[in-house]
């Protein structure tokens, strides 16, 4: 029997531990393409989260009714339905945003985060947990896109959410709002994140070694580290 994870944990794990962008490295296409400004990142993340939450809920509700052979096809139809709804609503109500995000709203269908969560989580868990998991992943995606969008907007156009934050004397680095800038910014962010994690791991490892020497335990494996919460 699977160990039951606390409900809150299903949400919080998506924020960092299995962050879609930085840990699962999923959904790279919208991450790189739309984050030329913070507002675009926010809109994209919200649209994705909407689709993610509702499709996870639906899939988790019907998971026992769908024959195994056609589960992926069924998931895709469900996801595509919600994506089309988002697309239509945005075109009707938020014309400017829908223009800025262009083809990337319909492309949420192929965003691996959604199918990934559907297959890995929603198809195996109840509705409540699935929604919490979807919300957590959506929030994680939101954080990544907002951070990336902010960095690119600040350096590439001197503004954040449309407000100027850097002085006129600062010559904006146009590369940051070009595709190359997306790769550079994301790569460096990931690099620094991994560096931080590595450093933290080493610190915990060292303190554990010291601790275990006193207690007397065989060796520090990855499992031991995981238990210690690294």
């Amino acid at each position, binding site marked *: 029997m699977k160990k039951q994870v606390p409900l809150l944990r299903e949400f919080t794990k998506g924020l960092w531990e299995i962050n879609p962008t930085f840990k699962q490295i999923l959904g790279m296409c919208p991450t790189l393409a739309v984050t030329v400004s913070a507002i675009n990142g926010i809109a994209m993340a919200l649209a994705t989260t909407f689709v993610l939450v509702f499709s996870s809920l639906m899939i988790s509700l019907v998971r026992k009714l769908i*024959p195994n052979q056609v589960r992926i096809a069924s998931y895709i139809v469900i996801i*595509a339905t919600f994506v*089309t709804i988002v697309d*239509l609503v945005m075109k009707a109500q938020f014309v400017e945003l829908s223009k800025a995000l262009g083809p990337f709203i319909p492309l949420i269908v192929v965003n691996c985060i959604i199918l990934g969560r559907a297959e890995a989580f929603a198809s195996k868990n109840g509705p409540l947990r699935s929604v919490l998991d979807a919300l957590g992943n959506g929030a994680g995606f939101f954080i990544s896109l907002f951070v990336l969008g902010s960095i690119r907007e600040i350096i590439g156009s001197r503004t954040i959410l449309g407000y100027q934050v850097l002085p006129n004397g600062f010559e904006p680095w146009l590369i940051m*709002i070009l595709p190359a800038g997306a790769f550079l910014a994301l790569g460096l962010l990931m690099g620094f994140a991994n560096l931080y994690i590595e450093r933290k791991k080493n610190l915990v490892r060292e303190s554990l070694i010291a601790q275990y020497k006193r207690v007397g335990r065989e060796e520090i494996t990855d499992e031991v580290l995981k238990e210690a919460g690294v």
Partner: protein
Amino acid sequence: MKQISLIVATLTIIGIIAGGSLSLVNNWAAPKIALNLKAETERAIFLVHPDGKRYEEIKNAGLEVYKVFNEKDSSVGYSLVYDGNGFQGNIKLMIGLTNDLNRTTSIEILEQSETPGLGTKILEAPYKDQFNGLEVNPSIILVKGAEPSNPNEVQSITGATISSKAVVAIVNEGITKLKDIENKGASE
């Protein structure tokens, strides 16, 4: 056999539900989307003809072109939508023309994907305003470095020659096409 019918039934039901809910949303959204599109076209048409109050689409022209009328319902000219290749992608323009097609009233860039900060200077006043009341006969000419000396000359943007050239080429080509249609219409 039972398995197959189950699969077919599941997919059919999902398809019906998905299609049904989408048609509901579309019923609500479609008129709004159409309204948005119309408002956008209208805005663009009157941007190049600020004194315009009413417009009529010229049908069967093979071009997206509108005749614009002012308050007194007399024609002030044409608004022509025309596009062509820029430096990196398509440039779509709204070109305002006088009734005799001899001058542009002004131009408006509807869509473009030029290099930010360089090609996008075609959106800015120093370049764009050169098209206000510009002579188009025999055609618009792009000059580099020097100030325009003739009424049909436009000065190029430093460092963005290709984008500047593209806009002029699109305007010239659009006007030629429109004139051809006018002539044909007159002869018929």
